[in-house]
């Protein structure tokens, strides 16, 4: 009477595996939340062509002066601060969903870039960084001779 049910349970698989997976997921979630800055902010899009790469980021409501963009070989680092609205006497928040604080993102580009020719435009809360590919890194065309 007991055994068939027991066998059934074994077939479902180890419940511990699911538990461990859940635990890992929770750890990942909470470790991110305890950091003093946002890990995945801002979200980036990367557009590539043969001669350059464009990185776009949605960073609404920051002072472009506070944005720090640095390039070293193939690594692009974006950092800045999003400040919270300062409340005056007698003002209260009903709802607060927008994030604030310091953020840093580092991105490894698909090729070496010419750091002197990097241009950045911040418009309508979207940052566009254009990074031209380094001259020595550009692909060379090889002609095939026929004899």
């Amino acid at each position, binding site marked *: 009477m007991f055994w068939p049910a027991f066998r059934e349970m074994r077939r479902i698989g180890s419940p511990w595996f699911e538990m461990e997976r859940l635990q890992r997921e929770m750890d990942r979630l909470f470790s991110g939340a305890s950091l003093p800055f946002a890990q995945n902010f801002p979200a*980036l899009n990367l*557009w*590539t062509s043969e001669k350059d790469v464009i990185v776009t980021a949605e960073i609404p*409501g920051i002072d472009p002066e506070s944005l720090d963009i640095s390039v070293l070989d193939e690594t692009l680092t974006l950092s800045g601060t999003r400040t919270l609205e300062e409340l005056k006497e*007698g003002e209260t928040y009903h709802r*607060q969903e*927008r994030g604030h604080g310091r953020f840093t993102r580092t991105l490894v580009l698909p090729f070496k870039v010419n750091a002197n020719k990097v241009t950045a435009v911040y418009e309508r*809360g*979207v940052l566009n960084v254009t990074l031209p590919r380094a001259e020595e890194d550009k692909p060379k065309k090889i002609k095939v001779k026929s004899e």
Partner: protein
Amino acid sequence: MNSKAAEKQELQSHTGTSPAVETEGTRNRKIYLPRVDILETGDAIVLIADMPGVDEHSVTITLEKNVLTLTGEPEIEHFKGYNLALAEYDVGDYQRSFSLSDQIDGGKIDASVKNGVLRVTLPKAEPAKARKINVKAA
């Protein structure tokens, strides 16, 4: 048992996503909920929404029967001759509605957009403002 059922029903009506008037865009674009901060000052309610990619021409604010709707339609990001090698975000329309109380003066709503952040100031109607009452000595 009865109260639990009532509670469940209430919860459903609270979390039900269908607004008073359900609408659907004619364009086949994704619709995102912008993140919003709402704060109350002495004489107004201020609503601040993150809408990256939106400027004063691509945002609309409507007020109908105490429902305030914010809509933003940014231009789709596309660079000709480029491949999208990494995509962490997608560009789509923004839409979000809030129901206002009668205490808002609908005729005096003021809105501005800067750096992709929309700021709507909803002034409180006269009777809703806190008034100071002087106490006279008898």
